[in-house]
């Protein structure tokens, strides 16, 4: 929500803070990385799919919940699900 009024500052983590708040977040990240590395999706498709999430879902979701929602959209659209 960068640059959007009413959402407060963007939280910035401390150096040395764990990259993932929970194991499932690391698995979502790994899944996205493998799908990109194998050429199934590209980063711009992933960003686009995040932006296409229904607004209620987007606003209620955490960062990696948005990634997961976008991956679900893309594997469905590409006939892999």
């Amino acid at each position, binding site marked *: 929500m960068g*640059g959007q009024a009413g959402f407060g500052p963007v939280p910035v983590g401390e150096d040395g803070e764990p990259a993932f708040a929970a194991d499932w977040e690391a698995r979502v990240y790994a899944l996205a990385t493998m799908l990109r590395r194998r050429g199934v999706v*590209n980063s*711009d*498709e992933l*960003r*686009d799919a995040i*932006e296409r999430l229904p607004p209620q879902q987007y606003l209620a979701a955490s960062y990696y919940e948005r990634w997961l929602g976008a991956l679900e959209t893309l594997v469905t659209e590409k006939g892999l699900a």
Partner: protein
Amino acid sequence: MRYAAGATVRVRAADPEHHTRVPRYVRGHTGEVVAALGSWPLPDDSARGIAPPRIETCYAVRFYAADLWGSGDHTVTVDLWESYLDRP
């Protein structure tokens, strides 16, 4: 490469139906090219599966926060592809 470092550019105000990397907060605003960052696939094409995507120079463009939001002493630098920009 259309713009050199130091050039003044205006961001196109268009609001496309498809994915783009132009943040709404810089649309229609004027900034200064800080650097050309080389040639990269246009995300608007890559996001839609257009193959091959257009390849364009991407520029780091600096804006004054006060111009974008009416206050603030800092600047904001945004990576923008060539077709997002016009001469003012």
